[in-house]
């Protein structure tokens, strides 16, 4: 078989991504039809920039999801082939010299990397890792930042001073140094990341419990069962998240431990949350300091509302605009940080298809074979660009009110 030309490769890639195009079309059609009823999300479709950003982000989300469901991948992202090492895009696939595997996709669309793995499949499989960790880690950082930032701004004085000092301490750390200190096998062996996970992951639990408690404080009949249920479910999730059958914390018996986070991912997750949380803290604190002086807060205080009710149900909803915008930007930043970790070969196993690790693998032969490093680099660029554009669109639309 002859190798494909670029004129044949691009249509083949487009065909291979069919599920993504369908899902994108459906999402856009539905959202534009009902955009007047969808609040801020609907308004996004009034701005061209916002729509472009949303399309880019959703493209990667759908690619990741369908990739994980095995609808897009042409080959196993981890399978090596002796004959496909560093082959240029469009090379016909053979497992060994002259031996075409039957049933397999006949080409490596974007070529093979230095171990003969399919670059296209690895890029799509890598999207799944990035799309999972990025938003989730950002969400955790936001929970921690909000839970600490609101009281710091509301109570002020000593609490504020000490929390701000701590946040500045983490922020003064060069990120890469922190990564190198936290994500090495020796440190992982001491269990420090697990203990940090223990502290950082408690914040979502605390946040949700305080949120509900403040809301239903006056209705004991609803409050007690609701809180009991939430604590039971989230507590179990929290415990199974931090306790690991091989790690330093083994608090749950094996039959109750719902899942183990595979090695490396937890450490990477903790490192990224830890780096992001202080910045979120500073943003939340800044916004809350401003909102604290508004009349409706004074009115709530006069009504006799508790401090946590005011913080979570008066201040926080009014801070949501800037926080949503910052969330989008921060997911992009988290993606960049994840890539940085991968680029230095920290945390995730070396064969992991995530974009940072793939770029790291590809850069070693960059001046001779640039094709293994370019697709993940462009993928990361387009996802982060999409998130930035989305944030810009959201900011524009929320300022319009």
């Amino acid at each position: 078989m002859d190798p494909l030309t670029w004129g044949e490769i691009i249509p083949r890639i487009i065909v291979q991504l069919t599920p993504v195009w369908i899902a994108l079309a459906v999402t856009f059609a539905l959202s534009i039809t009902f955009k007047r009823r969808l609040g801020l999300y609907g308004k996004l479709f009034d701005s061209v920039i916002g729509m472009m950003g949303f399309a880019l982000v959703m493209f990667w989300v759908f690619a990741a999801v369908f990739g994980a469901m095995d609808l897009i991948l042409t080959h196993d992202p981890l399978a090596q082939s002796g004959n496909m090492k560093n082959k240029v895009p469009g090379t016909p696939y053979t497992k060994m010299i002259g031996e075409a595997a039957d049933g397999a996709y006949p080409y490596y669309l974007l070529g093979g990397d230095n171990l003969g793995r399919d670059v296209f499949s690895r890029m799509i499989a890598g999207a799944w890792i990035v799309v999972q960790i990025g938003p989730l880690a950002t969400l955790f950082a936001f929970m921690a930042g909000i839970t600490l930032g609101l009281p710091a701004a509301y109570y002020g004085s000593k609490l504020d001073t000490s929390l701000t000092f701590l946040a500045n301490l983490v922020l003064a750390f060069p990120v890469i140094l922190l990564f190198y200190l936290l994500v090495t096998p020796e440190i992982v062996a001491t269990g420090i990341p697990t203990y940090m996970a223990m502290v950082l992951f408690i914040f979502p639990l605390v946040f949700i419990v305080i949120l509900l408690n403040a809301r239903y404080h006056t209705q004991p009949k609803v409050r007690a069962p609701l809180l009991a249920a939430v604590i039971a479910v989230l507590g179990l999730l929290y415990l199974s998240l931090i306790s690991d059958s091989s790690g330093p914390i083994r608090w749950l018996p094996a039959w109750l431990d719902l899942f183990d986070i595979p090695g490396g991912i937890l450490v990477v997750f903790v490192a990224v949350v830890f780096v992001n949380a202080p910045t979120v803290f500073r943003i939340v604190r800044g916004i809350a300091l401003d909102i604290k002086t508004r009349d409706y807060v004074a009115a709530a205080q006069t009504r006799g509302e508790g401090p946590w009710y005011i913080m979570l149900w008066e201040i926080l909803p009014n801070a949501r605009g800037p926080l949503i915008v910052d969330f989008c930007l921060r997911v992009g930043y988290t993606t960049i940080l994840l890539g940085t970790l991968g680029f230095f070969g920290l945390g995730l196993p070396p064969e992991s298809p995530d974009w940072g690790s793939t770029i790291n693998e590809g850069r070693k032969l960059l001046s001779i074979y640039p094709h293994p490093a370019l697709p993940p680099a462009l993928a990361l660029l387009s996802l982060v660009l999409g998130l930035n554009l989305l944030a810009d669109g959201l900011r524009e639309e929320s300022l319009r009110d």
Partner: protein
Amino acid sequence: MGLFILRRIAVMILTALCLTFIVFFLTNLYPNLEKLAKTQGNMRMTDTQVDSWLENRGYLEPLPVKYGQWLGVLPGYVTEDPEGAVRGRCIDTGMEPEEAPTFCGVLQGNWGYSTVFQDGVWDIVSTRLALTGKLMFWVMVLMVPSALILGVLAGMREGSRTDRTLSTVSIVSTATPEYVSGVILIAVFASSAVGLKWFKGTATSAMESATFDNFFLPVLTIALYGMGYIARMTRASMAEVMTQQYIRTARLKGVSFRNVVLKHALRNALIAPFTVIMLQFPWLLNGVVIVETLFNYKGFGWTLVQAAGNNDIELLLGVSIVSVIVVLVTQLISDVGYVYLNPRISVT
């Protein structure tokens, strides 16, 4: 103002102490020490041998004591092993134990010895820092003017076609981390696959003699990422200034648009970007680490990676102090500069 600076410096020193203590704690954890003992001594040491090796070199003292010794506020350890050989933190090879000074830490200028480069930490850090300084200087020369021009041009007519185009350029540049832009730039301009070969894909030769050929790509890679952010800040600040009453008055008075921008708006619009530029330093430090690794330019960032990757404890500590101090000093300058430039902010 004096009191404000003094207070800031006090907080800064406290922060530096906390941070170095954290780094000291993390690098001196037992698994790291064990690895050090095995790489320095013998790979097949038993656990007791490891312990006695560490004991003789003062590694097993309590952490605060070790930290004090390293800092130079506590007397250095002196141990005697069963054969009668005396070892001490302050006793160099060939020196009589009696002649050695009592204190020898970072404060006395004793930064330790690097196990990877087989050289004094201070010498390594200072030479590498000079190399990185050269890189940073050119990054600043390229980044700051182009970012400011980009921002001012975009912000002076908000919403115009120029603004849209330039804003898109700056968004793209903030969305491109160094390891992405570096890879793309090398692939396009330096690889044999595309064949342009305008620049060199490595900057190793730039350490001795930097030329446009071997130095432009690394400088551009770092500058691109920081540029977008500064440009966006400048644009926002410029756009805000352009809506002010005094600008409108100047325009109505008949001052040309060019003069309004250059003489009335520019000065006020540049206050905010100044702080941003200073606060970019910590992030530039990251960029330096990535770019120096990617282009194999053996500067400060490259040293950090080598020290961290090879468990070179004393070098890593030295590198951390320098980077923490760089970050803190730039924060201080940015705060003081902001107050100084902006008369509306008072320090009290």
